[in-house]
């Protein structure tokens, strides 16, 4: 079976054009390096990560299939059927409006209960991290699912670098807040900015990924560019997009959805076909691109890897 769904001939970039683009990229990177090296012309943080990341994505990356050999969902569906309320609540709103998101320059603030806090340009966050491709299932709380080839690195690798203190019990994530450009944030549908929280052991779990790429390319804006969380055993809303701030804390704040509707959206939000939801039956799911329904798997099929994190907990209560 082919690795990805086949692409019609008409959509394949002609070789000359591809090579011209590569040449342009190399030239741009070289030019960028010259410009950035003495730090004389402009601050280092501007327009730096995109070219560097593209260069790394163009090389052969290690690839892991963590979706039991299931075929990836079509690229066209992954990039046009999105929940990203910063751009509107319609499934196509993110694709339509996310060009308004400015992703380069981008910096990430890492603070709280860690020894090395600060605000870092994205290129510094990415440098030294080993990128790999991972094929994950994604299960939305709205009872649909996809199989997605992300590119990223374990969140644990970033956290370890900044050395959490012994008081760090939870990791708080915040998305970008920019109502001028993000039209969805002009209305108080949620208490912006979007906020998510993981327990520290969930955050340090090797499956918890910070994704910067999709289908071998940098993340499209509608999928949470330039850097997003992917927690494959939890409902999709836990996998926060376009992250600008990560804080390690002792006491956890409410997540955005918990604050909005605590009966429906628990803190853990582990995929669990046995916990009913008033809006969507969670026992089954629609795999985008397929007809019919599939049975939803406990922990979205990652029980072997993550069930021990919740040993002894009543998951009907801690949903």
């Amino acid at each position, binding site marked *: 079976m082919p690795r990805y769904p086949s692409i019609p001939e008409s959509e394949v970039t002609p070789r000359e054009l591809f090579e011209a683009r590569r040449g342009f990229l190399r030239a741009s990177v070289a030019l960028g390096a010259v410009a950035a090296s003495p730090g004389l012309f402009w601050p280092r943080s501007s327009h730096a990560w995109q070219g560097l990341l593209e260069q790394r994505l163009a090389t052969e990356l290690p690839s892991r299939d963590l979706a039991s050999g299931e075929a990836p969902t079509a690229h*066209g*569906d992954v990039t*046009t*059927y999105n929940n990203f*309320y910063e751009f509107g*609540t319609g*499934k*196509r709103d993110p694709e339509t409006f996310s060009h308004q998101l400015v992703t380069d320059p981008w910096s990430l603030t890492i603070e709280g209960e860690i020894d090395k806090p600060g605000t870092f340009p994205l290129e510094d966050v990415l440098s030294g991290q080993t990128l790999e491709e991972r094929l994950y299932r994604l299960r939305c709380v*709205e009872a*649909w699912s996809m199989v997605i080839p992300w590119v990223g690195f374990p969140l644990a690798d970033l956290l370890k670098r900044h050395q959490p203190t012994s008081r760090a019990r939870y990791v708080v994530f915040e998305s970008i807040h920019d109502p001028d450009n993000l039209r969805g944030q002009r*209305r108080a*549908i*949620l208490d912006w900015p979007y906020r998510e929280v993981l327990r520290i052991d969930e955050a340090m779990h090797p499956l918890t990924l910070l994704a910067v790429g999709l289908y071998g390319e940098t993340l499209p804006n509608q999928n949470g560019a330039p850097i997003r969380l992917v927690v494959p055993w939890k409902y999709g809303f836990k996998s926060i997009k376009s992250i600008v701030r990560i804080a390690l804390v002792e006491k956890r704040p409410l997540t955005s959805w918990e604050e*909005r509707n605590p009966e429906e959206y628990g803190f853990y939000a582990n995929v669990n076909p046995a916990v*009913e939801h*008033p*809006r*969507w*039956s969670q026992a*089954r799911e*629609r795999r*985008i*691109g397929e*007809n*019919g*329904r599939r049975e939803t798997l406990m922990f979205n099929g990652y029980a072997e890897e993550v069930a021990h994190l919740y040993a002894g907990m009543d998951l009907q209560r801690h949903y």
Partner: protein
Amino acid sequence: MKHHAPIYVFRLLVLMACSMPAGWLAWQWFCGNLGAVPSEAVVHVTGRVGLSLLMVTLAFSPAFRFTGWVGFMVARRQIGLWAFFWLLAHMLAWMGLDQYWDWPWIRREMIELPYIRYGVAALLLLAPLAVTSFGRVRRAMGWTAWHWLHRLVYVAAGLGVTHFWILTRADYLWPSLYAGALAVLVLLRLYDASAHRC
């Protein structure tokens, strides 16, 4: 009864306005413009059109009272039947396109998800209204009984708005607009009842 030309034109406009979304939907499906999950788009569009037409149906009586133009009363049954048609299509689209006629699951979702119960209840209330909307049945029933029965349309509209309200995940703009419109229509009806004692 002899109708004036404007009434025929109005009825024709109602016919066009109520049937057009069906053609549009079919064309968009054919062109592949309904997104990653076309069946979901069909369920949403049929529901929206149906609920909107139900509101418009309720608005025709006050429109007649305010303007005195008989065209609204002549076209009221027509548009009411269109509303029923769209809401029936909405339920069938959910059962067929979304649930693939999987009856055990349809039953289970009805039990598990309250908004589905409200929606089905609304349609069950509307069914006898559609059946008794024809002249011969109406005359056989007698005016008073018919009138009482057809007041159920307000209950059905309330259930429909409730259905839309509770299935909405975060953005209550549209459900609020429907709820507001229904509140105004109910108040107009009550005002009219108190003014005319009927």
